């Protein structure tokens, strides 16, 4: 579906430290016993936030100072592991629009982009600067400028990277590819026709 182009994302940030934050951590499998994505936001980072008896742990995600955050800042290889779209769906449904990380696992990145969740890469040093800025000024507005590869916070900025294809899709509002794929139906049947195993 052609959606509204995403040129910029602006919001407050929250820092979720650690490399290799896997999708089991983003949304534990036991909350995936569902047939719709509704309500997944509630379980985002559940075991990171809660003790086994259900009390809040001391974590930025529970800290009222960051309650209004809509941008996650994290480490390297964010979203590794399972292909579950439940992960970006829970991020989106918990009110986050973007993730700034050192790198992203591929399937997570693709799933997120398809949903319009903006994933940008910033260096270790730059993420540290942003994280400490958030820590000292939780009310700080962060803007991810997709078009100009920049993360702006207060009157400062650091560069960020985003894959060319994903950037184009976000800027044009074509990040959900279904409509474009549907248009190719005739060519699809031609390609399928040349492959013996595709025949009914």
């Amino acid at each position, binding site marked *: 579906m052609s959606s509204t182009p995403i040129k910029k994302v602006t919001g407050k940030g929250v820092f979720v430290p650690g490399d290799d934050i896997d999708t089991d951590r983003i949304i534990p*499998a036991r909350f995936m016993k569902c*047939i719709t994505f509704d309500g997944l936001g509630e379980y985002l980072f559940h075991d990171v936030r809660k003790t086994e008896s259900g009390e809040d742990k001391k974590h930025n995600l529970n800290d009222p100072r960051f309650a209004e955050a809509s941008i996650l800042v994290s480490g390297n290889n964010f979203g590794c592991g399972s292909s579950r779209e439940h992960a970006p769906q829970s991020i989106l449904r918990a009110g986050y629009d973007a993730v700034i990380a050192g790198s992203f696992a591929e399937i997570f990145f693709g799933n997120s982009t398809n949903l319009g969740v903006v994933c940008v890469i910033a260096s270790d040093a730059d993420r540290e600067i942003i994280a400490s800025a958030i820590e000292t000024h939780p009310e700080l507005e962060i803007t991810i400028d997709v078009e100009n590869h920049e993360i702006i916070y207060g009157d400062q900025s650091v560069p960020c990277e985003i894959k060319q294809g994903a950037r184009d899709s976000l800027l044009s509002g074509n990040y959900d590819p279904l409509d474009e*794929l549907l248009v190719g139906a005739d060519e699809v049947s031609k390609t399928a026709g040349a492959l013996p195993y595709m025949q009914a």
Partner: protein
Amino acid sequence: MGKSLFEKVWDAHAVRQLVNGQTQLLIGTHLIHEVTSPQAFGMLRDRDLKVQYPHRTFATVDHIVPTNESVEPYSDPLAQGMIEELRNNCADNNVTFFDTNTGKQGVVHIVGPEQGITQPGTTIACGDSHTATHGAFGAIAFGIGTSQVRDVLATQTIALNELKVRRINVNGTLPPGVYAKDVILHIIRLLGTQGGTGYAYEYAGTTFDKFTMEERMTVCNMSIEGGARVGYVNPDETTFEYLKGRPYSPKGAAWDAAVEQWKSFASDTNCTFDDVVDIDASHIQPTVTWGITPGQGVGIEESIPAISDAPTQSERDSVAEALEYMQFEGGSPIRGKKIDVAFIGSCTNGRLSDFQEVAKYVKGHKVAEGVQAIIVPGSQVVAKIAEDLGLDKIFIEAGFEWRAAGCSMCLAMNPDKLVGDQLCASSSNRNFKGRQGSPTGRTMLMSPIMVAAAAVTGQVSDAREVFGFASAGV
């Protein structure tokens, strides 16, 4: 210049270029299961779209099925709801469903190959990151998200960027007691959990030439743990031998034509790769993970790293976090860690040869006191053959539980879960925090034989010593 298998299969399935530069890629074979497909069918209904090529989608149920309860309704109403949803979606859309009463149900990555659905030179997608398993046959197999499951249902295609190809040559003979699982744990330890980002892994070399299909599947299965979305082995006589006579394999004259075509997909000898890694098989040890990512592994004769061993601050932080979670001391030997649970199964190591190998060695041994040990066949087909061979009796005699087919304790979506901070020796593929169902549960990944050795000794042990392999300790 020659082409790699990846390039040839990609080219044969590329439909056209999309506006953002991605390729619209035909997905020949689509596999679905109950966790990641219901929302996709829902999206189709919302947009009034139909399944475009229903004969190219195959379904099974694996994650949520209890393996110790066979009568429906299941005690978990959510699980019951999910299986019914899949049943209805398949019936409504003319999709073949290997339901629990067919004798063919099982973990999706075990069912596809054993039914002969997984074939060389094809593209395969499944809403599951271990789809690379099917690459063992020389297919290009992608794990996809639910919106992409929707895309495949509605168009039989997805939008993708082409991958680079890294060839990983493993040459030589594996020492006794070292298995395909150790090969992939070793590769991930070497190249890291994100080393494969942007790559398809082509596994080759004399070790792979000699591997059975089941061994190749074990390696390809865990490509994603190394960050690679796709992993494959070029098809050869071993591949064709495996596929011959399977329910969905071509028959008669079509078989010969198919084999000819399959051969043509293998990487050309003169093709170039974006990267090449060479590994000597004789250097690989039985490997065990000590941390919370599959890359945090060591050989059984080694010690767990100390925080100070890590070269960078972020790596030191990762080691510290893992040690704290696992309750291990840096620098302590990996062997001797007391386990509570032993799990043999999953799409990595839930196949017949895994069970045959374990049965060969556990005969005459007993599961240590206080250890819960479960063996879970990856499919009903595997279960049936294993039972016909009497393997179940050997396991039960040794003190293991023998279950019905499913994902079981590989992940926390069915009744098999760790409790509290239990430590589990597991033949599965992920040791993430909480992966096996308890938020503080601890997982150590290893080969089925190493799990069996841990089960009978009650602690992480060198299977070569426990079971008296010919050249133990070499």
